[in-house]
């Protein structure tokens, strides 16, 4: 059973060991090349209150007056001591900024991840089983339209219909305004999660539907399925019986490998719905050229996506034994 797992994990760890430094150097180079003056971004609208001497003092205190290689070296030195550095935008340690926002983002991403997998695989199976009939055509049309719709547009559409037009769902925030977290019920929290989660899951659902449908069709066309059908099994029964394993293995691989896109999509969904997660902090860090925070978020995302891909490979091998021979 675990004969394939150990070599897989070892290989991936080696890959991570060279990927992390390369990504760190590349990311830092990109940030330092960005045409944003971090001191000006920090001062922002207060230009007339902060004289040139104070600007020099700000640069000195935050180490912004050093050349990029020296800034990188000092960041790396801190990292090796387990310190992600200090965020100038938030005036707080990077680890604290990330830790305060990660739970909200993970709740959003996690729920959207599960919801889109269940919904996408289900629709794909139904479409595959009813190939050429109206449910298939309808599902495919919806999938293609969704694949062609930008996420922010879907979000705005959902807000204008369900929040502003019908007034069924809140348009913003993770909790109702004017109340303390301790006064907000779980039901209200879920209520506030609906639109962001739907936005986030709908955007990535199209490829899942189409791939599931395709792999189910491949199974249904196979001699094995033909044999079962000859014995009286209906396509729907085949789809949710023996076909499930064929189709879901592919769907799971695809879905886990796409976890990174979900992370990117959450930046957008958080901006539209004022969701207090990492997305907002990412935007703030990028527009403020906040190097330590961007590096921290970048590396956290990298590990997140890397873990997603690794889980995808493990899950695929569990679902489909034929893959286990491959590294």
């Amino acid at each position, binding site marked *: 059973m675990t004969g394939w797992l150990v070599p897989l994990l070892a290989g991936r760890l080696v890959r991570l060991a060279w990927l992390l430094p390369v990504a760190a150097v590349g990311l830092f180079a990109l940030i330092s090349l960005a045409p944003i003056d971090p001191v*000006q971004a920090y001062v922002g609208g207060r*230009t*007339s209150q902060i004289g040139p001497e104070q600007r020099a003092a700000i640069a000195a205190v*935050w180490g912004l007056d050093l050349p990029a290689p020296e800034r990188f070296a000092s960041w790396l030195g801190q990292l090796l001591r387990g310190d992600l550095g200090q965020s100038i935008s938030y*005036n707080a340690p990077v680890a604290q900024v990330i830790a305060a926002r990660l739970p909200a983002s993970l709740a959003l991403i996690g729920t959207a991840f599960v919801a889109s997998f269940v919904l996408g695989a289900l629709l794909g199976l139904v479409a595959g089983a009813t190939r050429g009939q109206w449910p298939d055509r309808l599902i495919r049309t919806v999938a293609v339209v969704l694949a062609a719709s930008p996420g922010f547009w879907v979000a705005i559409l959902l807000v204008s219909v369900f929040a502003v037009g019908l007034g069924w769902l809140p*348009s913003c925030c993770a909790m109702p305004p*004017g*109340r303390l*977290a301790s006064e907000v*019920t779980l039901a209200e929290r879920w209520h506030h999660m609906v639109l962001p989660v739907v936005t986030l899951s709908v955007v990535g659902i199209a490829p899942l539907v189409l791939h599931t449908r395709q792999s189910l069709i491949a199974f249904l066309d196979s001699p094995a399925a033909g044999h079962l059908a000859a014995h009286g099994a209906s396509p729907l029964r085949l789809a949710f019986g023996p076909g499930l394993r064929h189709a879901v293995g592919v769907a799971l691989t695809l879905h886990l490998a796409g976890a990174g896109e979900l992370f990117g999509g959450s930046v957008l969904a958080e901006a539209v719905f004022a969701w207090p997660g990492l997305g907002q902090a990412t935007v703030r860090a990028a527009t403020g050229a906040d190097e330590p925070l961007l590096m921290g978020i970048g590396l956290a995302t990298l590990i997140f996506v890397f873990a997603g891909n690794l889980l995808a490979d493990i899950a695929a091998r569990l679902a489909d034994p034929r893959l286990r021979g491959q590294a």
Partner: protein
Amino acid sequence: MIRSLPALALALSLAVPSQADARALVLAIGGEPDGGFDPIMGWGHYGSPLFQSTLLRYDAKLELIGDLATNWELSEDRLVWRLSLRDDAVFSDGRPLTAEDVVFTYNTARTAGGLADLRVLREARAIDATTVELALTEPRITFAARLATLGIVPAGSYGAEYARHPVGSGPFRMVEWREGEQLVVEPNPHWHGGEIAFERVSFVFGSEEAGQALARTGAADLVAVPPSMADRAPPGMEDLHVDSVDNRGLAFPMLPSTGRTTDAGAAIGNDVTADRAIRVAVNQALDRDALVALALDGHGRPAMGPADGLPWDNPEAAIPGNDPAAAMDTLDAAGWTDEDGDGIREKDGLRAAFQLLYPASDSTRQALALGASEQLRGIGIDARPTGGSWDEIGALMHSQVVVLGWGAHDPSEIYFLHHGNYSGVDYYNTGHYANPAVDAHLEAAEAASGVDASLARWKAAAWDGETGFGPRGDAAWAWMVNLEHSYWVSECLDLGALQVHPHGHGFPITHDLASWRWTCE
């Protein structure tokens, strides 16, 4: 059993009713300080400092009145502020506020490298428990603005956690701050300033659209809205327009082009705008009311100077606008005539043409640039609107005209924009303007014996009867408009007298939050 737990949690969560009974005041006006509520790092610039109190404060007319300080005076040599403190100020944790806390706050902020500029402070020292002295390195009357913005923190408990768990002697204390989402405060029972009409105040952050959606559902009592939404308050709310000095104007390059460049390689000077006649003609020609209608949907007022309506503004320095005939006379007299009949004037073979730079991301400035260009074409000046990023503008702003915006509650801005020492420094004096007489007035203002005494000097820098930076003098700028800041406010909320707003829409309206009142039952 394990399986039924989620179902049980669901049932409980649906069954427990909300506990909020008193209705909170809910504001959606932005202004969340990402870095937290630490005055030493720059919190409390405009608007209410909420948690802290300051030595002095501005009233609705922008005159300085006491808050923690009961008496304040500047020494004969203008280097030492001596302030007496009230003895009944108490921090929200119950400990009394003494001179030691003031001294700690000022000395710490001086070297902290945050957004409170106290470079001119030499030292703060306590004389006794209720008297402090703030010694400066040189006479600087605008230091008074710091006395009104720097909130006092407790020396005993200030630390790394302060920004997110502030303790102060201000009107409110923090109940909960969910970053990026909402700040909830309640009245500080130890506050020395009187009763507050709200049991709780919530500041909802997030997008403008989210704030408007809250207002439409009746969940917010005050919302900052953009000009396009300014006259569309939902039922139960009123439109509120507040005058501001959030201004936009044209900064002229003042020097002729001689091939000089800045250290970064940007060209300096422009032969067309170096001619005073061109700058005066632009000031005379601009129809500022039309610009307000065009670019601001009517939500603004014409700008005649950098500080319209503030105590240090000098209306005498302005010249009448919307007068193309006078502008054309000015140009004719200076030798700018249209000889080749293309509609644009020339002088000695030089076309009256320059670029009008604006940040492409700012639609208001774009509209202003386009409108001004159209109006100037009428008097034979070719001002070509050119959108770009701030980077591109930075490379061109010393040799071309640029749309800039200012408007602080602090006359040091007047100094930065017009003093020769700030030529080409950051965005201050982009035109390299330098007039020794103006510099002398500005320096005299900073060295004045008091805030009131400095006002006449600031005004003289704009126009002293012979010269000045204003349009009657050197016309270093052509100011165009002051924005109006728009809000939707609940019909039941009385905000009292409001200040002229500074550059910055939203949070500055909270300046007198502690004295707001409900007017309905």
